[in-house]
């Protein structure tokens, strides 16, 4: 393990190009280790405590003895521990908004059906949805290969030991993907219901998928993830007859944690309920696309799909 930052291995995070060739950005680490510490902070005190000196009057000791130990200075910071990521996320958000690009951060536990849903969505919508994908996995480009087979542009980010994507990784992913103005970017986060919840990427919306084989108590077991969600999708509805999963109970548990989240039930395998998902995408994409007139699609996806079926 790297002892500078604790990240997984020598390679650190790797990002593929559009052709699927993995590359290691920068000096082997995506996040920069600051070498030049800009000394721009301001001192509250004019003296630097560089030498031991007499604190007889100020230290409160009545006898006025000399302190031999070096004095310490307290620097008040009072900033959020995620401030750096949040700043980068805000930069991403501005970058995306400026181009009218919608980015959906898709999160779930491993195997809930993120890639299957994306593959089906891209295949069915085809040219009606101008979309690219940024795939996040610890290792392999298996998911990116599945997306690439649909003919849509895809970038694979391998986080190595990392358990989530952060705003800096998305920045590099967007640079590599270079999405068209007015297009949509799906970000498939690392399969994990814990860590990705805390990292704002600058996305337009967070989509959380829970599959019926996981159990309807997931929202309460992983409240941070469901609290952050804008849309919760219950996937694998075709398996409902075979598992002990109560959709209404799941919705009730989500509502307890997050009253504002939207909620859809579908099966990415059979296609049941997908029209509602496309409708959501249409609403979400139209809203975000509004500022960039001329680049956004004019045909509603749901209408186009209804005609296609």
């Amino acid at each position, binding site marked *: *393990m790297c*002892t*500078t*930052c*604790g*990240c997984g291995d020598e390679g650190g995070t790797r990002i593929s190009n559009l052709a699927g060739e993995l590359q290691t950005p920068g000096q082997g680490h995506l*996040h920069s*280790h*600051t070498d030049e*510490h*800009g*000394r721009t*902070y301001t001192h509250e005190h004019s003296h630097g*405590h560089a030498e031991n000196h007499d604190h007889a009057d100020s230290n409160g000791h009545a006898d006025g003895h000399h302190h031999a130990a*070096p004095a*310490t*200075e*307290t*620097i*008040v*910071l*009072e*900033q*959020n*521990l*995620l*401030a*750096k*990521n949040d700043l980068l996320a805000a930069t991403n958000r501005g970058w995306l908004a400026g181009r009218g690009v919608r980015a959906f951060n898709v999160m779930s536990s491993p195997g809930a059906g993120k890639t299957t849903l994306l593959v089906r969505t891209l295949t069915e919508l085809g040219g009606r949805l101008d979309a690219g994908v940024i795939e996040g996995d610890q290792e392999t480009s298996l998911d990116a290969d599945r997306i690439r087979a649909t003919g849509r542009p895809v970038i694979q980010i391998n986080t190595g030991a*990392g*358990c*989530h994507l*952060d705003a800096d990784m998305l920045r590099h992913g967007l640079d590599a993907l270079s999405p068209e103005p007015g297009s949509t970017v799906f970000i498939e986060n690392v399969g994990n219901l*814990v*860590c990705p*919840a*805390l*990292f704002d990427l600058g996305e337009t919306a967070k989509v959380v998928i829970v599959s019926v084989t996981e159990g309807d108590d997931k929202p*309460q077991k992983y*409240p*941070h993830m469901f*609290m952050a969600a804008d849309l919760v999708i219950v996937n694998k509805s075709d398996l409902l007859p075979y598992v002990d999963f109560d959709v209404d109970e799941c919705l009730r548990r989500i*509502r*307890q*944690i997050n*009253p504002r989240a939207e909620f859809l039930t579908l099966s990415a395998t059979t296609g049941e309920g997908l029209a509602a998902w496309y409708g959501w995408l249409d609403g979400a994409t139209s809203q975000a696309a509004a500022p960039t007139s001329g680049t956004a699609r004019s045909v509603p996806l749901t209408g186009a799909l209804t005609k296609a079926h």
Partner: protein
Amino acid sequence: MHELSITQGLVDAVLDRTGERTVTAVNLKIGPLSGVLVDAVRFCFDVAAAGTPLAGARLQIDEPRGRGRCRSCQDEFTLSDLILLCPCGSADVEVLSGRELMLMSVEVA
């Protein structure tokens, strides 16, 4: 283990302000509803601080209690997790404290 990247961010944030001065103590405030485990941050800090002016610094973590206020009955009560449910049965609860994830101050030599 998101605590590792958060702790790395903490070390970077401190170094941005303190440069090469030796940091002797770091004061954090981490609430029980923040999604960050205090023990994991302590575990990661030694690794993240190694080889920097923060190496060996004392990590002091203030852990405020989670508090919520019910918008239905106006009662205030302790929140031990993010299941926002008032004893009166209402789930319309405002989190007053417990989500803190703050770098408060550092002490430098």
